């Protein structure tokens, strides 16, 4: 029967998906076709009846049965049961681990052979070979000239030239493995924290040739890694400058090791932070790579923010919103500046994601930025923002940096005092409150502790006024008048702010394009301050379990240089 009709039209009518014209046309057809009208009507009734069926209550204990079955399968290893839940280890990781294990064993054997054989020679176990030597004058490593490395030990047997070849072999093994020769490694713990302590290095031979600092490897990592990273690391150490970078090598069959940071540690050597996939791999890498001149310890967990540059841990950070025509270039510029000045700058990694959820102050800052730009008569389009967090002490330097270069891709717009924002959000952060109040008292010239009750009484007003006072004036100065960038002094008088908010004329007067006292009350009225916290990585890629290892690489003792000289 329905073959006569357009089924899609009928279905569209039943589902209510036809537009007005289609519905009118179809109803006109229905008006003349009683049979079709009856069928469509009944179908619509069926549809409504099905929708009214609703949901039946779930039997009690359904989930419990599932959970129990899951636990039982995990305990008994039922092959038909579900797999265990923890799924942090991908399947192919097992293959990689197997390859790594074999590679590690091979490397350890080679390294052991390189270390043990030369040790046995002076102890007399291999001295019988010296009896066949034509020249029994003893070891003299400084005269080693032969480039033949692979045949070093063979030459001992065939030519009985113990003194030269043995020492040369040892030296070349060291050079090839980027390791000094004779340090003793003591592994103190096999579980976390992984720690390897190195005893004082002692040369195998008192008069053996010592590796010069230029030849001395800096990063005792895998050969593949060393080939890729040694040059840069050595340059970094030679220049005496801190370097932070990330190099991730993912060659087939090789471990994924990220050199996260390389820092200079006093005059002793370098500090290298490795990131490896898991603890077992870290141990394997420890045994294989960090055999000598290295101290391995667990490094602190990485900052949830993506940081670069290195500096002492900062306690009083300021969050900045940088409007940039090219965020990438701005990010690069700020990163270069941070690295050149040893300043730690933390960039918000998931600004966009978090901004969408509105759960981060970036949304607040963005609103503040747009509002302030509107007040200052500046265009707000064609810009993107970049939020960084910086030590407040370094803030003036960054301001100078951003304002100095005409071709700078970024313009600093808004600053927010993290501490104050935290306080405004309501959590009982007494330290933050204390700092804020102290800062205000200092700014107002009332650092006396007798004013504490007054500050407590005016807490709400004071903290609100302190929020823009800390940075907004500084940040807005270049926006108000590009020619005056950097010349405007930050506002420091809280009373002025209060007066400004209470002045109705100030609120109603239009904001001129030139630098004017900013109407903070309007800005504050548009702000909903939220606590500053690391963004929840909701929509980020699943983080891999990685272990950060801090490796302190010790340089050759000064005595060695003296001996060489």
């Amino acid at each position, binding site marked *: 029967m329905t073959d006569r009709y357009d089924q899609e039209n*009928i*279905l569209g009518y039943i589902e209510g998906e036809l537009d007005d014209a289609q519905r009118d046309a179809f109803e006109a057809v229905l008006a003349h076709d009683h049979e079709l009208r009856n069928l469509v009507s009944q179908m619509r009734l069926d549809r409504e009846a099905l929708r009214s069926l609703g949901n*039946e*209550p779930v039997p009690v204990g359904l*989930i419990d049965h*599932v959970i129990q079955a899951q636990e039982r399968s995990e305990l008994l290893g039922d092959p038909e049961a579900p*797999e265990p*839940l*923890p*799924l942090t280890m991908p399947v192919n990781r097992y293959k990689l681990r197997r390859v790594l294990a074999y590679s590690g064993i091979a490397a350890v054997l080679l390294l052991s052979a390189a270390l043990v054989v030369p040790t046995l020679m002076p102890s007399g176990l291999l001295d019988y070979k010296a009896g066949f030597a034509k020249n029994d004058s003893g070891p003299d490593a400084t005269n080693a000239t032969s480039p033949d490395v692979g045949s070093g030990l063979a030459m001992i047997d065939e030519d009985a030239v113990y003194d030269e070849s043995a020492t040369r072999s040892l030296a070349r093994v060291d050079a090839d493995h980027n390791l000094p020769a004779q340090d003793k490694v003591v592994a103190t713990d096999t579980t976390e924290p992984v720690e390897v302590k190195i005893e004082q290095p002692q040369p195998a031979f008192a008069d053996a040739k010592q590796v010069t600092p230029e030849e001395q490897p800096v990063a005792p990592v895998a050969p593949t890694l060393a080939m890729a990273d040694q040059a840069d690391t050595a340059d970094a150490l030679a220049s005496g400058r801190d370097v932070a970078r990330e190099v991730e090598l993912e060659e087939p069959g090789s471990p994924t090791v990220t050199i996260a940071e390389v820092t200079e540690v006093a005059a002793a050597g370098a500090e290298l932070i490795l990131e490896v996939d898991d603890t077992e791999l870290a141990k394997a890498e420890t045994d294989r790579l960090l055999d000598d001149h290295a101290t391995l310890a667990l490094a602190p967990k990485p900052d949830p923010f993506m940081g670069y540059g290195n500096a002492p841990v900062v306690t009083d950070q300021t969050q900045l919103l940088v409007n940039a025509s090219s965020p990438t270039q701005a990010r690069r510029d700020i990163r270069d500046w941070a690295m050149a000045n040893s300043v730690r700058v933390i960039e918000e990694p998931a600004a966009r994601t978090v901004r969408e959820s509105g759960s981060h102050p970036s949304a607040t800052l963005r609103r503040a930025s747009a509002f302030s730009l509107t007040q200052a008569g500046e265009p707000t389009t064609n810009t993107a923002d970049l939020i960084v967090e910086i030590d407040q002490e370094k803030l003036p330097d960054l301001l100078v940096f951003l304002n100095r270069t005409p071709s700078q891709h970024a313009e600093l717009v808004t600053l927010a005092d993290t501490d104050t924002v935290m306080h405004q959000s309501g959590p009982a952060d007494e330290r933050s409150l204390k700092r804020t109040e102290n800062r205000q008292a200092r700014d107002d010239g009332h650092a006396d502790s007798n004013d504490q009750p007054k500050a407590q009484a005016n807490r709400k007003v004071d903290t609100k006024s302190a929020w823009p006072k800390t940075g907004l004036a500084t940040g807005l100065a270049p926006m108000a008048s590009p020619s005056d960038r950097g010349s405007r002094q930050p506002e420091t008088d809280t009373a002025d702010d209060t007066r400004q908010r209470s002045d109705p004329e100030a609120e109603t007067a239009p904001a001129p394009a030139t630098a004017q006292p900013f109407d903070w009350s309007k800005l504050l009225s548009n702000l909903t301050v939220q606590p500053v916290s690391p963004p929840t990585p909701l929509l980020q890629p699943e983080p891999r379990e990685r272990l950060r290892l801090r490796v302190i690489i010790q340089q050759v003792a000064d005595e060695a240089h003296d001996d060489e000289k």
Partner: protein
Amino acid sequence: MTPSAEQVLLAKVRRGDPQALGELLTAYQGRLYNVCLRMVSHPDDAAEVCQDVLMKVVQGISRFRGESGLATWMTRIAMNQSISHLRKRRIRRTISLDQSSQTDPGDDQASALRHQLADSREPGPDQRVQDSEMLDRLRQAMANLDDDFRAVLVLRDIEQLDYAQISQTLDIPVGTVKSRLFRARLALRQEVDRLCTVGGDAGGSSGEHSGAVGGER
């Protein structure tokens, strides 16, 4: 459950958090149970199938790549599991009916099926009002429908999914969803009419009905 909350929960489950797993299953068990119930038309069977579904969810959540929604993915599992259960039950039922026909030659397969379907009805004597009769008839008609038709009706009318979601769940094109939905509605209407005729026949047998209603397939 909001997508972001779902993502959080999913991430926790993947990290092996049993509490998150419990929350996730609790959040979706009602929906999955009702899908199973509408498909298999019997509460005990639905509970059994739903338990299997939840086990499969636990088993396969590591392989869930997020190409479709989590709910869609779970519903698809529920659909497949329900259809699989119905096929097994159909085989068992056929064997059982064959055996019973040997012992009682006078009872044909259709009447045995009808008795079995009648047993699955829940209304008591007090509920025999017209609306509940209509709903019961509708449930029975749904139970008599072909699995594919019942699936598309469950997803569209009971779960109220749109065409795209039904397409993802059943893994068929949207055009097929529409045509199948129309035919399912038509088959349902015909089956309800048939049941009304049978019911008005004061217990008369319906020898014409010998299996699932496939409509104009």
